[in-house]
C-alpha cells in the first residue's frame, strides 16, 4: 500500500496528490499499464490518497511512485517524504484500521467505511480487483462492522453541532418531522444546521436581527426566514430552537417557555443555546418536557465522547491486528487451485 494521509502529509501536499472524480478513470487506466501490478484499489478521500496493490515484486513501489509523480507533476522527493509504504500483514491491518475509522481525523467516524466501499466498487468497475484484494476488502468491511458493533469507537458525537443533533434524535427520533428555528445566522448556527440537515431535518426557519442575513442562510439551508420581532409569537410552532445571537440578555424567560409547553403539551421542546451570553433563561430547564442545553453542556458531552473513543482505540487496534494476522496467514496458505504464489499486498499511504 502506497499513500499519503492527514497523518503523514500536510494539506498542501494532500491537495496536490488528490485525484478528482473526473481523473479516476485515467488513474485506473494508467495503473493498469504498470508492469507487475496484478490487482489494485485506489482509495481517495479528502484526508487520504492510498493505493492498495497486489504486486509480484517490491520494484513495483518505484514504478508506482514514478507514475504518481508524473500524474500529479510533483517531485519524487516530496512524495517519498510525505508518503508511506506498507507491505503484507501491515498493509492489511492498515486497511482494517482505515475502514473502521481508527485512522480517521475524527476517530470513529462512519463515513470512511462508505468511502472505502465506493473505492472497492470503482475498482471492480475498472476490473482491477482480483481474488486477494477482493477478499482483503471484504474482510475489512466485516472488521469495520465488528468494530462498530462491539466497541464504543463510533459512539457519541465529538463536535458541538453533531452532539446537538444527537440530542435532537434522542428526543424526536426522526428529524424529518421536526420544525427547527434558528436564532442568529452566524457560523456556529450554520454548522449545526448542516448537521441537522444531514440527518433528515428539512423544516428550517432562520431569524436574525438583520433580515437579509437570515434570508441568505435560509436560502442556503432551503428553509425560510422569519422577522426577528416575530420570534416570541412563533415559538410555539417549533420543536427545536437554536439560539446563537449576540443578545446581552436572555431572549426567552422561563414563563414564556412554560406557556409554550402549556399550549402544546404533547410535543417536547429542545432548546440548544449556543450563544454567550445565553439566549435562554437557565431556569427553563425546570419545566417538564423542555430540554435545555447550553454550549458548555454540549462541549462536555463532546469531550466525554472523545475521551470514550480514545480509550477504545487500543482495544480496537489489538483486535484488528489479530484479524489482519489471521487473514494474512490464510492468504499465504498454498491454494491447490493456484499454481502461483498470491504475491504480496502492498500499499502506499
Amino acid at each position, binding site marked *: 500500500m502506497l499513500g499519503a494521509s492527514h497523518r503523514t502529509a500536510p494539506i498542501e501536499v494532500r491537495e496536490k496528490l488528490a485525484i478528482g472524480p473526473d481523473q479516476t478513470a485515467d488513474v485506473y487506466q494508467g495503473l493498469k499499464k504498470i508492469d507487475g501490478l496484478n490487482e489494485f484499489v485506489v482509495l481517495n478521500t479528502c484526508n487520504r490518497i492510498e493505493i492498495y496493490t497486489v504486486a509480484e515484486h517490491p520494484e513495483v513501489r518505484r514504478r508506482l511512485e514514478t507514475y504518481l509523480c508524473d500524474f500529479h507533476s510533483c517531485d519524487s522527493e516530496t512524495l517519498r517524504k510525505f508518503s508511506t509504504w506498507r507491505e503484507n500483514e501491515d498493509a492489511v491491518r492498515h486497511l482494517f484500521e482505515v475502514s473502521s475509522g481508527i485512522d480517521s481525523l475524527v476517530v470513529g467516524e462512519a463515513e470512511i467505511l462508505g468511502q472505502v466501499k465506493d473505492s472497492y466498487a470503482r475498482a471492480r468497475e475498472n476490473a482491477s480487483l482480483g481474488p486477494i484484494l477482493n477478499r482483503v476488502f471484504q474482510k475489512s468491511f466485516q472488521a469495520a462492522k465488528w468494530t462498530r458493533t462491539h466497541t464504543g469507537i463510533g459512539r*457519541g458525537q465529538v463536535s458541538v453541532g453533531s452532539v446537538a443533533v444527537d*440530542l435532537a434524535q*434522542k428526543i*424526536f*427520533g426522526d428529524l424529518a418531522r421536526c420544525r427547527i428555528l434558528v436564532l442568529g445566522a452566524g457560523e456556529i448556527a450554520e454548522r449545526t444546521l448542516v448537521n441537522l440537515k444531514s440527518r433528515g431535518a428539512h423544516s428550517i426557519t432562520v431569524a436574525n436581527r438583520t433580515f437579509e442575513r437570515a434570508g441568505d442562510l435560509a436560502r442556503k439551508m432551503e428553509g425560510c426566514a422569519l422577522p426577528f420581532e416575530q420570534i416570541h409569537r412563533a415559538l410555539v410552532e417549533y420543536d427545536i430552537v437554536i439560539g446563537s445571537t449576540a443578545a446581552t440578555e436572555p431572549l426567552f424567560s422561563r414563563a414564556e417557555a412554560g406557556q409554550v409547553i402549556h399550549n402544546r403539551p404533547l410535543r*417536547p421542546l429542545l432548546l440548544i443555546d449556543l450563544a454567550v451570553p445565553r439566549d435562554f433563561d437557565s431556569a427553563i430547564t425546570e419545566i*417538564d418536557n423542555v430540554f435545555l442545553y447550553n454550549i458548555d453542556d454540549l462541549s462536555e*458531552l463532546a469531550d*466525554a465522547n472523545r475521551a470514550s473513543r480514545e480509550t477504545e482505540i487500543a482495544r480496537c487496534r489489538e483486535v484488528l491486528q489479530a484479524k489482519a494476522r489471521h487473514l494474512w496467514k490464510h492468504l499465504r496458505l498454498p491454494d491447490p487451485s493456484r499454481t502461483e504464489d498470491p504475491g504480496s499486498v502492498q500499499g502506499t499511504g
Partner: protein
Amino acid sequence: MTLLLQMDDRSWIWGGNLLYGLAFAIALFFVLRSRRHSRLLLFILIAAGFVLQTTGLYLRGLESQGCPLGNPFEILQFIVWSLIVIYMVIGPAFHMSLLGFFTSGLAATIGVASLLVPEWDAVRREELFGGNVWIELHAALAIFSYGAFGVLALTSLMYLLQNYSLKHKKLEGVFHFLPSLYQLETMNFRLLILGTTVLTGSLLIGAQHWFRDFQSVNQGKLFVTTAIWAAYSSVLLLRIREMLISRALSWTCIILFLFALLSIPPVDSNRKPEARPPESARLERLSPSHLTDESPRAAPPLPGPKDSDGGAAGPPPAESRPTPPI
C-alpha cells in the same frame, strides 16, 4: 427425546422462564459493558422460552380442559406469556431498542417468582369456567390485557429513564441505547389503547354472565377488576385530552400495573374453595410405590384441600358454578 416426553408442565414452564432469564442476563452483560447486544440472539432466546412456556401451559390447559387460570401461579404465568406475545409482535415491528432486555427481565422476575412460591400452585380450582366458552374468553382477555399493561409499564419505565438522562445530561451506558422520547410516548399511547380496549371487551363479555347470575360472582374480585378497568380508562381519557402526559403518565402506568399485579394473589385467595392440587403437584406428593405400577394419570385421587372452615372440600361438584378468574 424420552426425557422431553417425560417432562411435566412445571418443568416446561421452568425451562421457558429460565430462558427468559438467560436472555435478560446476556442483554444485561452487554448493557453493563455499554455494548450493543444482538437483538436477533435475544429474540431467539425469548422465542425459545416462549415455546417451552407455551408447551407447559398447554399441558396444564389439557388437564384443566380450558385456559390454565386456576390459581395465582397460572395467572402470573399467563400474564408473562401475554407479555412475551406482545413483545414478539411489537419488538420486531417497531425496532424498539432495549424492549427485549426489559421484557425478558420482567418476564423472568414474575415467572420465576411464581415458580418459587409453592403456595401459589398448591391448589387449583377445577371446572373453572363451567364449560362456558364466553367466561373462558373473558378470563383469557382480561389476563392478556394485563400483559399489554405490563409492556406499557416497561415502555413507561424506559420513557422515565430517557427523560432522566436528557434532563440530567447523562447519555452514556444504558441511556445510550434507549429509544427516542417520541417513540416511547407513541408506544405508551398505543399500548394504553390496546390494554384498555382488551380489558373493556373482557369485562363486557363477563358482564353478560354477571347479570344472569350475580350470586356466583366474587365481590372482591369484581371490585378490584372494575377499579383497575376504571383507572386505566380514566388514564386513557386523560391522555386523549392531553391532561396526563409524559412523566406523569409514565409513573401512573407503572404504579397501576404494580397494583394490578399485586392484587392477583389476595384476590385469588379470596375465591371459592372448589379447588384441587394440580396434577403435577399431586404427583409430587405421591409415594414412589404409587407410581410403580400405575400411570400418573391413573393415580388414586387425593383428598381435596381444606376449605375455609377447616373441612375437606372434597372433589368439585359435577355442576360447579363458573367462576371467572378476574
